[in-house]
């Protein structure tokens, strides 16, 4: 016996919402990365849950999760590299200071 789909979805949405909050609130690039990871993770949960409850015969959702994880890894790598570069350039990783694209 497991919890229903709704429970998983609620967890997922909550985690996603926390990610959004973090993304908006953090001033630090690394903090942003953490929030993004949370959001990706929430998406992963959704994929898993939908796969299990709606089409248990297939594994497409699980494969998507793997892709999400893989992409998250790639993204994290690049992101961290960018953090390095930004820091070298601005001596800061505060996103409020990094606004050279301001119109």
């Amino acid at each position, binding site marked *: 016996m497991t919890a229903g789909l709704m429970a998983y979805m609620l967890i997922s949405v909550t985690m996603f919402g926390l990610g*959004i909050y973090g*993304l*908006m609130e*953090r001033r630090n690039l690394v903090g*942003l990365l953490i929030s993004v990871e949370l959001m990706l993770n929430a998406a992963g949960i959704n994929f898993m849950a939908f796969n299990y409850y709606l089409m248990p015969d297939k594994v497409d959702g699980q494969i998507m999760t793997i892709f999400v994880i893989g992409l998250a890894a790639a993204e994290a790598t690049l992101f961290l590299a960018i953090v390095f570069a930004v820091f070298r350039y601005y001596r800061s990783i505060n*996103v*409020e200071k*990094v*606004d*050279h*694209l*301001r*119109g």
Partner: protein
Amino acid sequence: MSELLQIKLTLTTVLAPIVSFVLIFLFFLRQHAIARWVSLLGITTSAACSTMLLWSVDSPAHHETVSLPWLLPGDINFSIGLLLDPLSLVMLWIVALIGTLVQMYSFSYMEDDANQAKFFAFISLFCFAMMGFTIAPNLFQSYVFWELVGLGSYLLIGFWNHLPSAATAARKAFIVTRLGDLGFFAAILVAFAGLGSVDYAGMAAGKNSLWTASLGGLDVATWTSIGLFLAVAGKSAQFPLYGWLPDAMEGPTPVSALIHAATMVAAGVYLLARNSFLLTVGSESCVIAWEGIAAIAMLTALMSGAVAIVQNDIKRVFAYSTISQLGYMVVGIGTGAVVAGMMHLFTHAFFKALLFLSAGAFIHAAHSNSIQDIARAGGSRLKVPMYSLLAGSFALAGLFPFAGFYSKDAILEHLLVEHHYIFLAAALVGVLVTSYYTFRVIFVMISEKGDGHDHHLHTGAWMVPPLVLLMIGALFSGNIWNFAVKHWFSIKHVEHGNAALITALVSSGVALIGIYYSWRVFYKKSSADPMEKMKGLANVLREKWYLDWSYDKLVHAIYLPFTWLLNRIELRFVKGALDGIGTACMNVARGFSRLQSGEVQQYFGLMLAATAVVILLITRL
């Protein structure tokens, strides 16, 4: 003479000068000696051919037209061709003859000029244009060459264009005559729209109903006449457009002679003569319009004659006398005496060319235009020019047996016979004034004895033959017309009792009075110059009836400020509106660009908000 030969001769006559123009322009711009001979050869060919043509005309009914579509394929309305009838041939002959004499004269007059090749090229172009105008079989071709005549005068008047006064005079001549040309253009438009043809033959044969069709209150014929008169007023220097002609004296004197005798100003009178059929096709209003034309011409004659009295520049005296004589011609044609008007044009061509060329001889010798200066330099000792000046003056004053006597009397007689008594009276006043100012020049000249610089004075070798020939013309051209030319024009000479005798006696008497008075004032100095007494009038005359002043005001106080205003509007409103649109766009964009803060989180928030809206819309919550 066969028709084909006639056509060939005409073409040779007309094209010879333009060939010399092209040759000089392409090859001989620096070889002055060759250039002048090329030019003279061209115009002499024309003169010879036109003389042969003139002989070949045997009847007044002679009328021959050849036209080729020029503007559009198959469109005969706007074609180039030639019209051979006595009128055009006589005119052609005058142009070629005077042109030849003037060019010959220029050999001496322009001998020191560094650009004389160009001068001869231009003068050839000028003669070509005038001849092309003369043989035009339709209004269109007339207009084309009419404008080219204007170009020729522009180039020649402004020939010494390093002098600002010459350049300005040339510009004034071109623009003022162009103002008149608007009338010509309008006349073409009206006539073509009304009749569907601008061919002279076609127009003369045009249905009366078409000519009298109502158009803006008047009829087609009237508007055409008015338009054409405007053009004539420009070219033939009638009120109110005559202001350019005296200024045109800035050109070399041979050019003045040409302009005043045979080409530029003659074009207007000739055009009017050509279109005198309008008098017969139009309605009542058209006749009134022509009367009006005659009245304006009479006014011109008197006004300019009066101005001539106070001029001290010898060329200007003759310039104003030209305007006055042109007035006579237009009065004649306007009241229906086409032949008399043309006759006066014919004789006037000779004696006015003579007057200008002799004036040129004085100027060339004395290096001054002022009558008094010439007199002081001993101008009266120049034998040939002095005789020719005398001959010309007698002709201009209309004394027997000089040519002017016949032609002027022809017009006066017509006025008497046709009961135009007001015109007649005015014309007689004009005769008085004419003889007065003409002989003023002579008496001033001979009253001074000179101060011993006469060894400088000489008449150029090439000046003498033209002067002598023109003297003969001034003497006999009236008789030539009466004996040889008149029978080509299909007007039967009707004896009107003693009209001819009366006018001849009265006008001669009046002229003699003028001469006598002039003698008293300027030679004997026994009575005071009337201009000394009438200071106010003299001032008005010196200001040329304030006509130039009015032009000046028109240009500087109305036209230029108006263009200035338009330019301001252009900059302020047209350009300003566009710039305003641009600025407005920039401002809006600047507002939006504030959204692009460069802050990732703000973008993210906006993105999410937008996504939420989209989700709400999709799920219709």
